[in-house]
């Protein structure tokens, strides 16, 4: 008896919906095993990790806030990966967006008018776009692998940020801590009532807008063809270079917006650590959402829950919050494994097969 994969005649729509749920279920089971291996009661640990962080109104707001940067970045990455363009440096574009947007509050302190917040956001987008443009340029001009260049630029951006906040941009009144000046209240993103701020609205807009672009827009059509049938795209005259530029600038700009959005809300100033790996988690979000920007909206909430769960589990059980990174990795394994069920069915060879219909 042997396990083999059989290609389906066409992709299964049912499995396309079920496979992410199956992946989550398998991750929860694996999570229970990991907790048991660490010496915790698995049921109690799972409820602390997955349920308690979502049991209050303020914590749901917290979840949306954590999800916002993830969704914003993942929506752009969905388009990249659909087109077979591998931007894995969103973390660096996030960092550069945060730096570029902070130019005004740090250097141009005399600029004291409400339009400044809009300018900060615009600069954040530009910062991310510039950082995303580098791998696109190197890919188009020299054929250098965008996977490796975009990732290398993450390290460069992080060292650049580190240098800025320890050197020229350090707050002179900051007791030598590696931080810039704290932003003024009016330089932060406006909130609606509670803690939810404009960043959440950006994320929802981006996810819905890009879904439309992908489904109805000409560029979206080019991206889908380029990913599914590269040869057909070439014969249709779609410019490969154009697609690389478009997807990198778009995803870079969104990552930059996510970066400055975090600085203008949760963080409130530049410091060496501004992101708990959001740029890499966004990759998982994109895949869990099956590379659909709207799917990423839901997936972003799921991944945000692993961050909150990690914090909760650390507080309540004393488990390291690193557990959430492990869960994220395991989740991506299962997503990729279950994805196979969309295009293939598992068959057991060596068993008598029931066939109701022949031919």
């Amino acid at each position, binding site marked *: 008896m042997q396990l083999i994969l059989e290609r389906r005649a066409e992709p299964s729509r049912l499995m396309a919906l079920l496979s992410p749920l199956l992946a989550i279920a398998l991750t929860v089971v694996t999570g229970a095993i990991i907790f048991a291996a660490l010496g915790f009661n698995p049921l109690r640990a799972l409820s602390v990790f997955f349920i308690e962080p979502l049991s209050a109104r303020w914590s749901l707001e917290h979840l949306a806030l954590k999800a916002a940067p993830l969704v914003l970045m993942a929506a752009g990455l969905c388009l990249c990966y659909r087109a077979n363009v591998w931007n894995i440096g969103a973390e660096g574009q996030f960092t550069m967006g945060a730096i570029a947007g902070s130019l005004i509050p740090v250097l141009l302190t005399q600029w004291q008018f409400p339009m400044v917040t809009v300018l900060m956001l615009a600069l954040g987008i530009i910062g991310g776009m510039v950082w995303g443009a580098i791998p696109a340029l*190197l890919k188009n001009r020299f054929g*250098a692998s965008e996977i*490796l260049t975009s990732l290398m630029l993450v390290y*460069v951006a992080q*060292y650049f940020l580190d240098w800025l906040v320890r050197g020229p941009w350090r707050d002179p009144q900051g007791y030598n801590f590696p931080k810039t000046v704290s932003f003024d209240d009016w330089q932060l993103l406006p909130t609606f009532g509670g803690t939810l701020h404009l960043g959440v609205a950006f994320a929802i807009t981006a996810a819905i807008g890009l879904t439309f672009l992908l489904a109805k827009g000409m560029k979206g059509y080019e991206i889908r063809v380029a990913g599914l049938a590269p040869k057909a795209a070439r014969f249709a005259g779609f410019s490969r270079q154009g697609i690389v530029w478009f997807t990198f600038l778009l995803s870079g700009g969104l990552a930059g917006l996510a970066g400055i959005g975090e600085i203008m809300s949760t963080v409130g100033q530049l410091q060496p650590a501004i992101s708990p790996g959001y740029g890499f988690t966004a990759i*998982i979000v994109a895949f869990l959402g099956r590379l659909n920007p709207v799917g990423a909206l839901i997936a972003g909430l799921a991944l945000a829950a692993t961050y909150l769960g990690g914090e909760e589990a650390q507080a309540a059980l004393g488990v390291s919050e690193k557990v959430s990174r492990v869960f994220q990795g395991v989740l*991506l*394994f299962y997503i990729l494994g279950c*994805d196979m069920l969309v295009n293939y069915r598992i068959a057991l060879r060596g068993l008598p097969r029931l066939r109701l219909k022949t031919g």
Partner: protein
Amino acid sequence: METFILTIITAATPLLIAAIGELVVERSGVLNLGVEGMMVMGAVSGFGAALLTGWPLLGLVAAILAGTLMALIFGVLTLTFAANQVATGLALTIFGLGLSGLVGESLVGLPGAKLQPLYLPFLTDIPHVGRILFGQDIVVYLSIALVAGVSYVLFRTRLGLIIRAIGNNHDSAHALGFDVVAARYACVAFGGACAGLAGGYLSLAYTPQWVENMTAGRGWIALALVVFASWWPWRLAVGAYLFGTVMILGLEAQARGIDLPPQALAALPYLMTILVLVLMSGTRILTRASAPANLGQPFIPDR
């Protein structure tokens, strides 16, 4: 000068070992981007095992095992389930960085067991060259042996011919009756063993301690080195030593108080990786000719 060369060798060795493994993987047509994750798991397992047993060599064995196990996860997903190789490799890195941080939490700051260098009476004591030629730890010699061995197997044996055939055209190789999936499993496992060993070398010889994320992007640099070497083993050795030199020059410049921010020097290897990729990919003759044609493409036999 002697010490300077010795430190370069120590910096280059983990890059070389991780890259030679990945070279074999890519020659068989598989792109495993999880080198960083396998390496960091090798580092933490090697350190832990050496600490527990007090025997650094056992640490190396543990590191190899950890890397291989990680590679097998990748193998099951990409080879058996035909999952996307780029995404699975990334998942392997995210998972490895997370898991190593988790299991290594209690090891942070502990003094490690250091892999001792070789000592041959008289030979090691030869002035200037003795310690460079005869006073290294065994992994350094092993790394050179690996390059020679891989070069020989890939280009002088039937097995190597099969591996390269599978990497260039898996459909034809399958039609000729070769077991594509099994051969790729073996190559992926070898790549994992090498990455694990490279990680173990970091935590047992380069800096004998465990620090979270201590691989610091070396797995990714190893991937770039394979492109730099245009998939030729001996060119890989040149590349690894070149990078080792740049890394050490950065540290050296810092120690001599050269007026550059330390962050700029720390970013140097990553900038150089980008530069190297641009230069190599720009010269199409070098890369096109030897890049495995089926690199990164999933294979499912349609029976």
